[in-house]
């Protein structure tokens, strides 16, 4: 058995002449929590549906354990899906929804009963057996969907923005619970979301997509700290993105002066995107300041203040636990390794 459970090779998909997926290559390891992250319409859901077997690639191959699965129908794949709006069976109660997969396999009644009860315990829905699914809250429906998908012991669980319909507090709770379930059952998760915080919190590996193309693939830490281009940097967290020029290795010019940085290997005088996280701009006084700017606005965000500081040539967004009043001139300092230089897209 190869180390990859699932492998997509040059997968292309079009709908009505519009190319949705543009030669996608990706691999999913066994027991991994992989997240497909991107804005709506980036092709992440289509990729998931191809893995689930609901769509067939126009070209390219989907491998499961090195077998070509292109023409294997969904019901023959050991893959289960949690759909975006749960797609619970409205004609069945909670118990029968969860038992659905086992009934199809014609399991004996007492095995069904044991396993459904076990699932109800897992998702904290004991006593809900006889309820009609349409009378459950969003969070409860979500739990039924999880139980229904997981009862079949799938090798892979596909999740299509499963938390999108829940409110903030519940979403955070379910993030923890989903991660727990994954660890407890040892199932591979392929997770689709447009919420970068969700992706960072839960994933072992994140794939950032845009316009049907994979932009970057890596651990949350890689993606956040070393984004490969300005789109990823902007999507994965708030960023200041400004134009600059690399005048040599470790030397960048932007915002009207030159800075030391930790990047190298660019063409001489190459035009680049400079990305600086708002929390990496430090307010300093005196000679340490590399830039001078005027505070234009302040918003209290709870953990920190968000200030807009206008320097010559660029207005930076700064996150800081300290706040300077609007109108004051402040000095800014950026550490070399906090300056991220990227090739223009």
């Amino acid at each position, binding site marked *: 058995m190869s180390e990859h459970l699932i492998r997509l090779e040059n997968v292309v998909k079009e709908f009505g002449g519009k190319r949705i997926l543009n030669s996608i290559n990706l691999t999913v390891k066994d027991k991994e929590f992989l997240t497909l992250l991107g804005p709506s319409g980036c092709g992440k859901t289509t990729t998931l549906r191809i893995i689930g077997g609901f769509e067939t690639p126009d070209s390219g191959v989907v491998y499961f354990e090195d077998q070509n699965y292109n023409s294997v129908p*969904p*019901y023959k794949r050991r893959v289960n899906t949690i*759909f975006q709006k749960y*797609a619970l069976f409205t004609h069945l*109660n909670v118990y029968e929804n969860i038992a659905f997969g086992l009934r199809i396999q014609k399991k004996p009644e007492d095995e069904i009963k044991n396993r459904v009860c076990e699932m109800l315990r897992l998702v904290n829905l004991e006593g809900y057996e006889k309820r009609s699914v349409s009378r459950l809250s969003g969070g409860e429906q979500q739990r039924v969907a999880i139980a229904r998908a997981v009862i079949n012991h799938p090798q892979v669980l596909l999740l299509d923005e499963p938390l999108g319909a829940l409110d903030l507090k519940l979403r955070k709770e379910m993030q923890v619970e989903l991660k727990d379930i994954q660890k407890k059952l040892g199932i591979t998760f392929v997770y689709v979301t447009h919420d970068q915080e969700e992706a960072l919190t839960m994933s072992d590996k994140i794939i950032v997509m845009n316009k049907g193309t994979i932009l970057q693939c890596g651990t949350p830490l890689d993606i956040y700290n070393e984004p490969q281009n300005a789109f990823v940097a902007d999507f994965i967290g708030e960023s200041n993105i400004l134009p600059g020029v690399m005048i040599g290795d470790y030397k960048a010019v932007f915002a009207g002066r030159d800075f030391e940085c930790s990047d190298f290997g660019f063409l001489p005088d190459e035009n680049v995107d400079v990305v600086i996280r708002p929390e990496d701009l430090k307010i300093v006084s005196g000679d340490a300041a590399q830039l001078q700017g005027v505070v234009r606005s302040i918003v209290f965000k709870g953990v920190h203040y968000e200030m807009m500081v206008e320097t010559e040539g660029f207005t930076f967004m700064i996150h800081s636990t300290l706040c300077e009043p609007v109108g004051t001139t402040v000095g800014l300092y950026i550490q070399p390794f906090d300056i991220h230089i990227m090739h223009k897209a």
Partner: protein
Amino acid sequence: MKARTSVPYIFWMAIFVVAPLILVLIYAFSSKNGAPTFDNFRMMADYGPIFTRSFLLAFFATIICLIIGYPLAYVLSRQDHRYQPFFVMLIMLPMWMNFLLRTYAWMSILENNGFLNRFLATVGLPPVSIINTPSAVLLGMVYNYLPFMVLPVYNVLIKIDVKLIEAAQDLGANRRTVFRRVIFPLSFPGVLSGVTMVFVPAVSTFIISTMLGGGKYMMVGDLIEKQFVGAAYNPHLGSAISLFMMLIIIICMSVMNRFDSNSGEEVILP
């Protein structure tokens, strides 16, 4: 319109709707000279075979409509969305044609030297003799009421969320199982509505039997007609029969309705 002004309005409408019903009650429970009596209902016993025949024919017509109409509605709902309105229109086409004309057309097709037998002769097959049999009456009823079965079932089927079908496939159901465990149970309200919409008019249908059954298989509808406009003029008996039919239909419908509202919880297919 405020609640207080709307009450008298509803009241007047109720009179408009209910007054004729009360009249029917009076007719049904009175004799020709106006005296109160149960005779009209007692007389109905004489027509037992007609009632039995009507219910049996309506029952079989409903079953046949379901057997033909459900797959038709299902196939329709799976067609390319662009062509669906055309097919639906095709199925509804006969409904816009006069009821008598539709039945007459079948009469000329089924006649002993009608179009069907002429066609069979052309291709060298022996003629069939259908006209003036219960089968012909059944055929006419199915033809007339089929759209009332297809449309409600179709309307429910097209509203079934594709995601539910995908969810069932995802959980291991092949095409047949998806149909048996998801699509059919979800379309059940449409089936109930179709069954009602076929059975109710079918059980009190008239003329069809006269035209296609050769008058040999009188049905309740024909019986009632005779009491009001025909030779056997007796509105008192006609009212009693109508009232009896209405009662039975209301009972059937409420049984059906209870069945439907419970279906979400209790209808479990083997």
